[in-house]
């Protein structure tokens, strides 16, 4: 671990922190265009964050320490998650600390803390949202793990950097198993980031919301941190998708030239992924909460079939 790899790591982290609200703004803009509305400005999420950071944080009387520390825990886990996902370069010192399984665990940690904090205040909406979030979470997690396993079967390692290295360096090979994994991953990403078929990120309608119900009690800088963390999570998911299914163009080392080349490629791919997400959201209708288990079970089964197809077709 030399100075240059530490610099790469820092660059990647700062990039994720800075670009995440922009990505959210871009997706909102695409969605507004597709739905024939006038779009908000691209930097609207930054404005929102600044406004929230300036505002006073109100905390309920009966809130415990857990309620106050949760925003920091959630933000910290999301920042760590985006630090270990290779985006610009695969030369990441932190990546050896956590592999794909630990990454799923990190997302789970944030979810558990958010749900506990929502139940901490004792309002009806908070506990309802927490229950729903856990329902979605425990169904999405195994599917996400299976997606990771499909990719690690190819490279023989669960470390994300190794997976990306193997996938991006070899000559063009079509893996039918990964096609299944990609569809499963799209479903999981929609569910985990509270996007339209499962949850509507722009609604405050009490009976349908999941994510908004969890953070209803937060205000000021706490809310700002949580909003920032959700943007980070969305970006982390898109980056995982890029890393597993379209890893071409990523820099293998830490040479400035290669990284300078990888950066616009990443921004282009993120923009494309965001537009695709907005399109998916516009095309689908919000489903009943009781349909969500079926939706996510489909993702799990697709990922398992992907594994099976890989084992059937690619024999050593």
């Amino acid at each position, binding site marked *: 671990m030399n100075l240059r790899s530490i610099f790469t790591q820092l660059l990647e982290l700062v990039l994720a922190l800075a670009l995440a609200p922009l990505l959210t703004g871009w997706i909102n803009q695409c969605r507004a265009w597709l739905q024939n509305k006038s779009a908000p400005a691209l930097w609207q999420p930054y404005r929102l964050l600044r406004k929230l950071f300036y505002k006073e944080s109100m905390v309920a009387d009966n809130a415990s320490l857990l309620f106050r520390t949760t925003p920091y825990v959630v933000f910290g886990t999301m920042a760590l998650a985006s630090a270990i996902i290779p985006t610009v370069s695969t030369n990441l010192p932190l990546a050896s600390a956590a592999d794909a399984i630990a990454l799923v665990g990190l997302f789970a940690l944030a979810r558990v803390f958010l749900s506990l904090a929502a139940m901490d205040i004792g309002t009806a909406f908070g506990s309802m949202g927490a229950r729903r979030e856990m329902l979605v979470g425990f169904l999405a997690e195994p599917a996400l793990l299976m997606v990771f396993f499909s990719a690690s079967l190819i490279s023989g390692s669960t470390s994300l950097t190794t997976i990306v290295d193997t996938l991006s360096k070899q000559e063009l090979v079509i893996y039918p198993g990964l*096609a299944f994994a990609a569809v499963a991953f799209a479903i999981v990403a929609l569910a985990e980031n509270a996007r339209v078929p499962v949850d509507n990120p722009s609604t405050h309608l009490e009976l349908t919301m999941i994510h908004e119900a969890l953070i209803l009690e937060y205000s000021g800088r706490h809310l700002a941190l949580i909003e920032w963390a959700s943007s980070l999570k969305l970006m982390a998911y898109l980056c995982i998708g890029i890393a597993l299914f379209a890893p071409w163009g990523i820099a293998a080392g830490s040479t400035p030239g290669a990284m300078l080349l990888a950066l616009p490629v990443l921004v282009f791919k993120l923009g494309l992924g965001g537009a695709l997400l907005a399109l998916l959201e516009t095309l689908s209708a919000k489903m009943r909460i009781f349909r969500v288990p*079926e939706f996510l079970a489909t993702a799990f089964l697709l990922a*398992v*079939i992907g594994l099976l197809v890989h084992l*059937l077709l690619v*024999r050593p």
Partner: protein
Amino acid sequence: MNSLLAQLVNLLGALLLMLAFAMISQRRIVSLVNLFTMQGATLAVATAVVGYVTRQPHLYLSAGLTLLLKAMLIPYALHRVIDRLHIRWEVETLINIPSTMLIGIGVVIFAFNLAIPISHLSSTVASGTLGIALACVLLSFLMMITRAKAVPQVIGFLAMENGLFFAATSATYGMPMVVELGIALDVLVGVLILGVFLFQIREQFDSLDIRNLEKLKED
């Protein structure tokens, strides 16, 4: 180049399996017909690619036939039938969808295991896809078993023919032309007859539920 094209055949086979699974998990009849159309188109592309890789021009003919029949003519006829019967959005299943999909996974594992020793014997480009073809056939079987209404059963039957066709293409580079033409004609005539049959069932029982057919005499 050729190895990449062989992988493309594998990918198209995987796509067929994915579509078969989507058909199992689909509730609405219109979407079912659309998925069937996509399956037919995928099958035509897969056949054409196998034909190109192995330089067997007669496979182009059967690809064209597949495209014409299974991606255009039959879906058109099915759309007409469900329009006339007013069942575009009908929702029905015998077993609930998640359990059907779980059974489907078991079926896929069974089919893959069954196909591995067979595909070891075969030396064709796409021998690995035999398991996928077998899984498609069995999944269509499953769809016919778990559906109560007549139209999804017809679609299941047609999807099963798709799977068989893919098995023939991947294991032996297609059947002799005469057999293929015969089957294509059979399927077309089968659809027409089943279409007439559907109207008859509807007229007799005021419903397309085939459980009505279990009673042999009027009460």
